Structures are given as C-alpha cells and as structure tokens.
C-alpha cells in the first residue's frame, strides 16, 4: 500500500514523487519510457543543446566583429551535435534517477492503468495506493492536415534524431516550438520557411515583443508566411493558402510544430469518471481532479504547458494531499522562448490588460541601456517592457527580448508574485554590469 503513486516521470511527476518521499511518504513512480519526460528527453534540454551548438556556429561567422579571426572552414557537425545532446541528456537523466533513489522513491517502468480510485496496474502487477498523481504529460499535437502524420514529416520528437542539416526546412507553426527550431535550422545553415495560421508569431506573447522578434528573425533570413493555412502535405511538398490563393512549396524537411496535446488515453480515466477533455484533465488550483484521491499536474492538465509550471503544480498537489495547504499562482509563471535573441516574459501582456480593462502605465527601454548588453552583442537589439497598475504601481507584466533575459526574468516573477510596486522594486540593487540592469531601468521608467 503506497501513500502515493505518480504516473509519469517528467518534471511534474519526478519532482512531486521526490517531494512526497522526502515528507516520509511511501511513493511509487511509474514511467512508460524514460525518466525525465518530454523536458529532459525530447523537449527543453535537447532543444537548448541544439540551439547552443547552432548559436556557436553562427557566432563563428560573427567572430571577426569581435576581433577574432578563425582559420580554415567552420562546419556544423550534426552527428556530433546530436551526440553532445545525448550526453547532456544522459547526465541529467542519471542525475534525476540518483535524486529519486536518494529521496526513497520506488520506480517501475511500464504503461500504467488506473483500475480503481486506489489502485494502479502495470502489466499484471497491481499496486494499491491512497493517492494517485497523474503526470502523464503531452505529445506533439497532430492537427487535421492531410499528410501531416506521414513519416516524412518530423515532429519535435523525431527531429532530434536528424543526422544532417537539411538545406531547406518548412516549419508548420510559429509558436515557441516552431520558432526555436526555425532559429536552430537557420543558424545551422538551412533556408527556413515558417507557416503560421495566425497573423502573428509567438501568440500569447506581448505583441510589441513578438513584433520585434518577427523583425529580428526575418533579418536573420527566416521567411514567415503568416495568416497562412497549410492544406496538405505530400512527400516534400507543402500546400497552403494565404489571402484566398493557394500555393505550394517544397522542402528537404517538413516539421510539424503545431503544439502539444495532453496524454489522457489508455489510463482508465473514462472508467473512473475523471473529468477530462481534449485540452486535458480538469484540476482545481490545488491539483485535485473531480475524483477524490486522484490528482494531476503538468501538461496533462493543459493549463500551462511548461516544465516549471508542472513541477510547482506537482508539489502543490502533494502538499495538499498530505494536509499542507498550498496553491499555485498562475499570475507569475515566467515563460521563455529560447530563440536568438531570447524572449522572456512573466505576468500579463499589454493586450491582456486592455482586454481586461485594467488601467496601466508602461515603460519600454532598449536593452542597450545596459552596458553589458553592448559588450556581449555586436549589433544586437532588444528591449524590456514593464507594465504596472495605473493606480498603485504594482508590477503586472514584464516582457523582454534580448539575451540573456531568461536568466533575470525570475526577478520580475518575484516582483509580480509578491505584488511589488515599482517604487519598492526600484530599491533593489542590480549587479553592474549585467543585462539585468535594463530591467531596473524599465522599472524606474514607469511614471
């Protein structure tokens, strides 16, 4: 009899399992594939190793601007890039496995099926438990486009096994996944076309930021087809319509980056009456599903498909199931798009504030106000935008484009999470010289 069975060993599940075990609970963690989930194996970490390699390759071309001359030819060695990715992933997966063992979490590999409110079956083995935490994550979405499911179309799983850089790449979807791969392939030397159904890229991001991002990525040579609907894929040909007329294009490689869908099948959720739909399992802010004893966290809930949100949701669920009141506050979850330049944001966008009728003040400063940004980037561009409440000056949203905004966005998250006003936030001392000083300038600029 376990206190908790966690289904899925991604960043939602494994952190929750370890947290419960450290509380002295008897915990079983069931994973059908690899510990680490999407994030470690086919998501955050592999894509960042790819992007680091492509960035370095791209920087070699820029080295002369920094007074560094490279002799001979610079080549992008895709098998070596994949090999490095595997090494990094291997190290991290091993780290998680060790951590789980130390915490005292028991692990089982296999497909789990919930057979009762208090029992989970893996193969022939039945495990009894007081609580179940669903952390089954998500998989690449397959929209109803003819031909998109064919083997010739890559998705964000299979793309990591490429053995060479294609000459031309067509990416379906201009969200964060599509944009990161667009950036990678472009820097690695491919000609990239991005097809996006909506009139903007990175939907959900602050429009001023995503518009700037579009300009920058276009300048890097990526071609964007916005308000464009992909009609079908045949072999290497992609058929699409825009402005009422149809066209087609060919590419060595076609990548489906249309988003992610929660994994809810084969778990026995229907039989138990767990409330879920195509957008995931429904949960309360404390991680409860409608069925007592069954909890959920991460992508499977369809709330915020972000590893760090999953981790927090898992820990919140564990705390609540064992009597410690806790809740996740979605208002201050940072999100990053790891393109070059990076886009990092937390809190509400200007468009959201307008739609909600919130009166706000705003301040936008160029990244170049921070000396360090000029030092690091030759001809780089970026900006930080701070949105604050009109009446009390509480920070409502911070949106940045420019490297390395992902490393300091957490400061803004803390300000938002603690409802800090611009006057208090302006009292913080930021280290000099760092890019983060642009955030300080933007905060001080809110009048």
């Amino acid at each position, binding site marked *: 009899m376990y206190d908790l069975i966690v289904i899925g060993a991604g960043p939602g599940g494994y952190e929750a399992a370890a947290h419960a075990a450290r509380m002295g609970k008897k915990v079983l963690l069931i994973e059908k594939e690899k510990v680490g989930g999407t994030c470690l194996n086919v998501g955050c970490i592999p894509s960042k190793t790819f992007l680091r390699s492509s960035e370095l390759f791209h920087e070699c071309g820029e080295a002369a601007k920094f007074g560094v001359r490279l002799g001979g030819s610079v080549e992008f060695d895709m098998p070596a890039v994949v090999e490095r990715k595997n090494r990094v992933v291997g190290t991290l997966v091993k780290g998680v496995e060790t951590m789980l063992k130390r915490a005292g979490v028991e692990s089982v590999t296999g497909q789990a099926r919930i057979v009762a409110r208090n029992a989970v079956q893996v193969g022939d083995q039945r495990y009894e438990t007081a609580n179940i935490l669903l952390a089954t994550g998500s998989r690449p979405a397959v929209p109803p486009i003819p031909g998109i499911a064919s083997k010739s179309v890559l998705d964000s799983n299979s793309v990591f096994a490429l053995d060479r850089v294609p000459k031309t790449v067509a990416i379906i979807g201009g969200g964060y996944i599509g944009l990161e791969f667009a950036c990678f392939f472009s820097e690695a030397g491919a000609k990239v076309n991005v097809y996006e159904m909506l009139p903007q890229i990175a939907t959900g991001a602050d429009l001023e930021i995503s518009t700037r991002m579009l300009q920058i990525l276009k300048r890097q040579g990526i071609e964007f087809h916005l308000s464009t609907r992909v009609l079908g894929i045949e072999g290497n040909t992609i058929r699409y319509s825009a402005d009422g007329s149809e066209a087609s294009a060919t590419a060595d490689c076609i990548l489906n980056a249309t988003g992610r869908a929660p994994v809810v099948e084969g778990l026995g959720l229907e039989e138990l009456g767990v409330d879920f739909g195509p957008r995931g399992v429904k949960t309360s802010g404390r991680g409860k599903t409608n069925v007592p004893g069954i909890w959920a966290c991460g992508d499977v809930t369809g709330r915020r498909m972000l590893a760090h949100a999953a981790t927090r949701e898992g820990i919140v669920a564990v705390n609540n199931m064992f009597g410690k009141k806790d809740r996740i*506050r979605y208002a201050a979850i940072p999100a990053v798009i790891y393109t070059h330049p990076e886009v990092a944001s937390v809190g509400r966008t200007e468009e959201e504030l307008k739609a909600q009728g919130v009166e706000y003040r705003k301040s936008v400063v160029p990244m170049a106000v921070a000396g360090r940004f000029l030092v690091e980037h030759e001809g780089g561009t970026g900006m930080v935008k701070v949105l604050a*409440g009109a009446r*009390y*000056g*509480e920070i409502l949203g911070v949106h940045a484009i420019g490297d390395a905004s992902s490393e300091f966005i957490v400061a803004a998250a803390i300000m938002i*999470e*603690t*409802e*800090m*006003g611009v006057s208090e936030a302006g009292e913080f001392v930021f280290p000099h010289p760092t890019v983060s000083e642009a955030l300080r300038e933007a905060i001080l600029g809110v009048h």
Partner: protein
Amino acid sequence: MATAVEVPKLGNTVEECLIAKWRKHKGDRVSAGEVVAEIETDKATFEVTAPVDGTLLETFFEEGTLVPVFTNLFVIGEAGENVDAFRPKAAAPAAQPAATKTASAPGAAEPARASAAAPAAAARASTAFSPRAQRFAEEHNFHPAAVSGSGPGGRVLEDDLRKLYHSQRPSSTAQRHIEAGEEVRDDGSGVAGMILSSDLGPAAARISGIREKIARRMRESLAATAQYTLNSSADASGLLRVRAKVKAAKGGPDININDLVTFCTVKALLDVPDLNAEFFDGKIRRHAEIHIGFACDTPRGLVVPVVRNAHLLSAAELSVKIKELAERAISGSIAVDDLSGATFTVSNLGNFGVESFTPLINPPQVAILGVDAIQLKPIRRDGKIEFIDSIGLSLTLDHQVIDGAPGAKFLKVVREKIEKVESICTI
C-alpha cells in the same frame, strides 16, 4: 510604581464583562502570572492574571458587576502606594473614554474608531500578552483584533504574534489597497501566506442610522409578536375598471390600484374595528380613527408615512394625500409627525410582481396588509373555466390578540370591498 490592570477586550463584539470571581483579594501577595480575577462575557469565562509581582492594592468592582472593557479592574504595587490615580471613575485611564462612549452612544462612527484604537491598548496593557509579545506588538506596530494565545491560561506569547504577523503580512500593493479602505477577506494566498490584493475586498460598511432603526424595529417586531400570514386574493376586475375610468377622465386625481386597495382596507377596518388596534403591556387599545401607514421605498430605506383620519377621506382625497406624503418621504422632507401614529399599515409589493409575501407588523399595531400583484386566475363559472384578473392579499396578524378566524374574516371583508369597489367609491 503601581500597575493597573484593565478589563481586556475579549472579542470584537464584547463591550463589557462580568466580574465572576475574585480569586485574590485586596492585600494579597500575588506573583506575575497568577490568576487574580475571573471575568465572563456572554460567551465564555476568562482569567485575568497579574502582570507583575506585588501586593493587590485595590479591586475596583464587586463580584457580579458589569464592567466596560479597558476599564481598570485592579492595581498591583507595593503596600502603601496610592491607587487613586487608577480609580476608574476619577482620573480616567486612556482607554476609558472610548469604552464609555461606546456604551452610552452607539453612534455610527464611534464604535469603529474605538475598535481601531482598542487592540493597541490591549496589547500595551492587557495581562493576556507576555512582555515579549507586547514588545513585539509595539516594535512591529502590530495590534491584531483577535489573537489566540498558546501560553499558560491563553497568554499570548511573542511566537503567537510573530506567526500571526507573518501570516497576515500584506504585499506592498495590498497595503495600498488597505490604506484605500479595503479589508482582508481571505487567508493570504501569496508566498508564505502573504496577503495579496486579490485577498482583499471592500470594507464592511456600517449601516446608516435609518437602516439601523429599521433593523431594530424589524427585530423587535419579530421578537415581540406572534406573527402569521394569511394569503387570499380578490377579483380585481372592478379595480381595473375604476383605474381605466380614472385614466380616461383626464385632469382628476391619478387614483391608482394601490390607492383603491388602501381605500377598501379603510372601509373594511370600519366594519372590523378589532384590527384597527394596538397591543402593548397586555392591553388592547382600539381606535375610532383610522390612521393608515403605507410602506414607502425611499433612497434612504423603508419609511412608513401615515395618512391621518383616512376614514374621513374619499378615494380621491386619500390618493392625493398618499402621493403627497410619498413625495416628501422620497425627497427626505417629510416631518417626523407624518411617520408615526399609524393604527394599521398597508404594504404594496404588487408592482414588483410579488405574488405573496410576509409583511412584518409594525408593533404595537396588530396587523398589516400586503398587496400583491394582479394575476390571471382560472375560476369556474356556470360550469365553464374562465380567467379573471385577481389581486393577491397577504395579511399578517399578531396571533397574541387576533386568532385565525377573525383574521380570515377581516381578509374576507377586504376582498368583498375590493370586488365591490365601483359601488363604494365614486369617481
């Protein structure tokens, strides 16, 4: 230096406490923490302990006395010290005026201010706080209205305050909301229990003087009477025909349905005078004059203007009088005399579509008639089902003096008057 100990404020609503028992008596040696007195509120018994070692120099009240909170209860010091400075009635200690004021004049603004100042005084002087807790309260300017102590005898320790302080700390934005008049509605939902602006809501507003008066009268009404309501209905076609005639005859007084029903009620009271009466002190007083009160909704709340000698008025005169009084009630210019002395009351919610309700008697009156909406009602006539316009009537009576049968009889008379309205009122 002598130390005075006050009656602590033991809850938001507690204004005075009963001295249940003196455990120590004048002249006894006491040590810090020893229980000196037991005091009671309407809810529970509490112990008041000595804050310091010394001699119990004076106990100011007898057992069984009700004492306002923050009034000095006893004094501890060295034998021979003068305690006159602490005597409650003479030189008043700092907190006493607030308590006295609250007790004598429960006006709108005063209690709010008193309760804001009160916890500070409690933290400073109450025996319920340990010295370190008192210091913490002072240092952090933190004086919660209620805090449960984990120390001996419910004594509040520094740790109790510290925990509460951290659990209640508002974010800087929430603090600004609080300063702008909002108050904490929920547990802190932020990091480590921090209070966020989403945990706040509009501060509870004290009800207006007139609302307070309505509230008291309604409570008294329910407490002092044995109310029950009879529901019936009358054929309203006569009322509607008269009304149509009034409308057609332009220039005359605009007699409406409510005026007509009030008129019919007056006529019914003439037939059944038992209900035109007041009951108090075990005595019934019947009135020869009929002064009709009518419930009137105004921007300041419910008021009940009174039409004097309504039995002497024609329907048109009654209508004019009602409108005149209602206008003055709504504009706030009505005289106090026009709001008292009713012998019977009519309350009309029919124009809101109410089909039946329970009007509350305005004591010492013994009945009130509620007028409901006009609705279609099926009746059987000559073996056929027909629909007629029917007006609902809800009569609340005080069963102490009016039993069901006489009440129903009056209602029947009202019904008959309404159905014959064309013959009793001339337009």
